[in-house]
């Protein structure tokens, strides 16, 4: 058990090292980079012309559907990992069971496909 915690301690140390790197970079930039803000400089960049709208424009609903599909298949992956670790000792039956599980999800993907969700039009 101490081994278990010490390995995550090293991960924490890596995070700390990264934080130090970021802090050093930001401080160095603050010290040596010029800072002369002008209203024109601080406007939103739109190829030189005055920006139109407030910047947070609406985007297609389609991206949102991909988000949904992602959640479904990522949860599936979460179920796959523990199974993949032990299925060899469980034998043939475990593979068939997982095949049924994947088939159900694949039917979902097929349904989304038929509904034209994956199609970009």
């Amino acid at each position: 058990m101490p081994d278990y915690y010490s390995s995550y301690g090293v991960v924490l140390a890596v995070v700390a090292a990264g934080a130090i790197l970021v802090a050093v970079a930001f401080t160095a930039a603050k010290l040596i980079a010029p800072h002369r803000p002008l209203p024109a400089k601080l406007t939103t960049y739109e190829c030189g012309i005055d920006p139109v709208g407030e910047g947070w424009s609406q985007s297609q609903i389609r991206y949102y559907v991909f988000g949904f599909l992602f959640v479904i298949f990522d949860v599936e992956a979460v179920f796959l990992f523990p199974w993949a670790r032990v299925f060899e000792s469980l034998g043939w039956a475990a593979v068939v069971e997982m095949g049924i599980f994947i088939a159900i999800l694949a039917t979902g993907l097929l349904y989304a496909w038929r509904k034209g969700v994956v199609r970009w039009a």
Partner: protein
Amino acid sequence: MDWLDWLLLVARIVLVFFGLLISVLLYIWFERKVIADLQTRKGPMRAGPRGILVTLADGIKLFFKEGIVPTNADRRVYLLAPVLAMFPGFLAFSTIPFGTGTTLFGRKIPFQLVDLDIGILWVLAMTSIAVYGVVLAGWASGSNYPLLGAVRSTAQMISYEVAMGLSLVAVLMYSGHLSFSEIVAAQDRVWNVVPMFPAFVVYLICGIAETNRPPFDLAEAETELVAGFHTEYSGITFAMFFLGEYVSTVTVAAIGVTLFLGGWRGPAPDFLPALWPFLWFLLKVTLVIYLFVLIRGTLPRVRYDRLMAFGWKVLIPFGLVWVLITGAIVVLPAELELDRGTVLTWAAIALGATLLLSFLPIGRSQRREEVPR
């Protein structure tokens, strides 16, 4: 743990950080040189011999540039996003074994920062965090181009993450371990790339898409979106996005080498036993990166609808089927009392059949939906 252990730990972490930073410096130079070769140019020549210091010069220049926070931006999130984009590459790399290790001051030094027993899951978690950097940068900029780039890029990254997860599941099933050192240990006779070649191809494609490298760099398609999610960034924050992107690419190559190409394994003479595995690891990572650069230099950018269709209609169904085939490869030998080689041959035949079946209907439906609106 006495003071010497702590000192060694700090030294290891600092060395890995520096190693990654230097590898990024060399990688960018290498990429520019190779692409210049492909286009019969000379590439960077001024800074240092053959321009090898060009990235260092660029980096130093970025430190001297003004960092602009637009008035329309959400200041705190705007500054947090580049940090979130930079961290995951380093954190994911910390679990990768890049050599066998050596003995120093009577202590065993593994060439691996930390051997997590959940290695593969850790890598997947880190690639997920990288998405936050992109989406927060786009949202916090308060500007149209970054927002569009970020939304596009997020949809792309999460789609290809699913396929990448499936290819990693196949490796996990074949070797039966989550920890990277165990996976390398399991490749002492045959590298995973031989039985798991389809998973390797899927992994490489998804790796390129995950790190937003060309031909999947839709997030920063210059002709449409200026620079995508980092349009508003300048100075040090821009440097961080750049660093993060290249560190992630090095990490993706290193993970691919560890999972599929035998990690640090390779023939080694008796002289200096700690050095050769490290050199083999470097060589393999360089070769994978060379492949990435060649792909960047030769393929045009993929159209967005084609990109998403490829991810969801080809890579993910294929990944699902491959997981089941891998299951059969692992379980069947014990059931039928055959060796894995025979089962693999049958699996290759089944794979060919699946490929044929899956490609036929797609060819037809794509012709119907050719025009994007």
